[in-house]
């Protein structure tokens, strides 16, 4: 296998929370804890987990929209964590993001043309006329009419706005795009249209994607591999084709079983007890042990490593009891 486009090694991000009258008490939100993974060129890695598990923080930390506290982010051979602000700037052309909310992520006072042109302008690409041509091409690529250029975000539906957000993200011809829940604000029928658009763009531009979502069926549809996060850690990482049939971590198994499926009469699993513990004070040992149906003493004492558990070396799980 060739060198991966992105290699993340032991990435960590904590947020400080201060309390008390003089803010003298410090505690740490363990948002991203020692995460390592690779993304190949043209590959899509799906990232699933419940709210607060750190998946969006991980996405933003990879792009240095949050500064990581420790670890390496090696993008195309360069550790971007070590770059200065000035050196990071040209790198940003190659790293882009699509946001969740197509209403909040577009400036309502700018025209669609201005919004899509902005990344080109910021990076000083082309003359005004060339940029204009580029914007028209981008609109066409994402399936919007050319006359959208003079219109404002409020004139568009949610799905169309998300197309604008996608056009802006691909304007600089990036190598890697973080998609942070790009479908969750959309209706089902529109969701399928945007999925198809992402599939087509990925193929034509050879994009690598980190696709963040809480919707497992969407993630499985788009991804080559899937990582499951729980309380700041990756608990399982496997090819998309096998994670749904051969999940090895009890949390992944439960997550898959609890998706409501359009199959009346299906036997539902008993709900998991309790709720996700606070990331301020994550449980000792395996972070899932407080809710895990098969937890033993070892799970409370010792943190399981993310290790290869199947004959397929691409399948890893962090559970003491995952069968090899």
């Amino acid at each position, binding site marked *: 296998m060739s060198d991966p486009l992105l290699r993340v090694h032991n990435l960590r991000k904590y947020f400080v929370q201060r309390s008390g009258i003089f803010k003298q008490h410090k505690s740490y939100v363990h948002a991203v804890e020692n995460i390592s993974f690779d993304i190949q060129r043209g590959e899509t890695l799906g990232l699933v987990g*419940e*709210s607060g598990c750190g998946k969006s923080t991980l996405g933003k930390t990879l792009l240095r929209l949050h500064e990581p506290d420790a670890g390496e982010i090696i993008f195309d051979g360069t550790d971007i964590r070590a770059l200065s602000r000035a050196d990071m700037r040209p790198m940003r052309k190659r790293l882009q993001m699509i946001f969740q909310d197509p209403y909040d992520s577009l400036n309502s006072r700018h025209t669609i043309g201005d919004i899509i042109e902005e990344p080109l302008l910021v990076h000083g690409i082309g003359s005004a006329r060339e940029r204009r041509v580029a914007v028209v091409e981008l609109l066409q690529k994402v399936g919007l009419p050319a006359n959208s250029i003079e219109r404002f975000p409020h004139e568009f*539906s949610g*799905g169309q706005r998300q197309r604008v957000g996608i056009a802006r993200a691909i304007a600089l011809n990036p190598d890697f795009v973080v998609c942070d829940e790009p479908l969750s604000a959309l*209706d*089902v*029928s*529109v*969701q*399928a*249209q945007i*999925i*198809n658009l992402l*599939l*087509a763009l990925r193929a034509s531009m050879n994009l690598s994607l980190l696709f963040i979502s*809480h919707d*497992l*069926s*969407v993630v*499985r*549809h*788009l*991804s080559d591999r899937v990582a499951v996060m729980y309380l700041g850690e990756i608990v399982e990482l496997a090819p*998309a*084709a096998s994670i*749904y049939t051969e999940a090895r971590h009890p949390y992944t198994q*439960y*997550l*898959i079983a*609890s*998706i*409501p*499926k*359009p*199959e*009346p*009469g*299906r036997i*539902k*699993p008993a*709900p*998991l007890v309790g*709720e996700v513990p606070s990331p301020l004070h994550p449980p000792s040992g395996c972070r899932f042990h407080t809710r895990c149906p098969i937890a033993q003493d070892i799970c409370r004492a010792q943190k399981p490593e993310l290790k290869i558990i199947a004959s397929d070396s691409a399948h890893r799980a962090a559970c003491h009891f995952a069968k090899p």
Partner: protein
Amino acid sequence: MSLLRIENLNVSVASGTNAKTAQRWPVLQDVTLTMQEGETLGLVGESGSGKSVTALSILRLLPQPTLRVDSGAIVFDSREINTLSTAQMCALRGDRIAMIFQDPMTALNPVQTIGKQIEEVLLLHRPTWTGAQRRKRVLALLERVGMPAAEQRLQAYPHQLSGGMRQRVTIAMALACEPKLLIADEPTTALDVTVQAQVLNLIGELQQQSGMAVLFITHDLGVIAETCRNVAVMYAGRIVEQAAVADLFAAPRHPYTRALLGSLPALSANPQQPLPAIPGQVPDIEQRPSGCAFANRCSYRTEICGQLPPLQEIATAHRSACFHADLLTADFARATP
């Protein structure tokens, strides 16, 4: 004898700020629904299809005069509730018909303890009860909805609870007077899947214990399949298909339902392949056609679709508003193995 009967309900919305002079557009058109005692009916549709407006009309909670019931009858428990006085309606709401909302944070008062908020329902509807009786009932309700450490939580404020726990509180409020009908408007949309599974399970258990009917509003066909017995599909302000859940999922008889089911990235479908998406979008409320509203996105469209298809019984307890419902019979095989 049905518990709830909605007949030819028409609701309109005023465009612009002055409701008197503004032009009005139809939001709901000829919505007809019947619910038996103890039934779970799912109402499914995309944003703007009129699901929530239907629910708010039943409770007469429409933001008047922007939204207005123009015609139609709503009969609950053999009483025509459209003609009730405001006071009579207040007595009904929260007592015989209760509702839970999508966002448990905005549904709760942030500056009151949850114990007080649940007790308020009883203060209003059980005026003869003593304080001790009310408090006993509040505690019993919190325990019934599975609130851990219920006694201590009486003094908790909404912000101290997680989303799932807040939704349990709103369910406790809704159940306070043992209503005959519970309207649940997207009760799990704001929750994570694992918490959603807990809350759906809870609603199902409570319904079995109490025998209340539940009108379950959601955009998620998976949730419908797992919670409801019957289902009505809405599109652009009309009910386009209505059937038992098993029949609808096995053999949808309206092109919209069929396309909606087809566009789901189900776990067993072909990954990485383009999904059969529905082209175009739902028509704006000002531009709804006089004929079938789905026609411009429909692959079965013919000339007759310029006319309005009536919602007709096409099989036992299965109704569809499509001229071509007969074509949509056997050829539907879902991609699931």
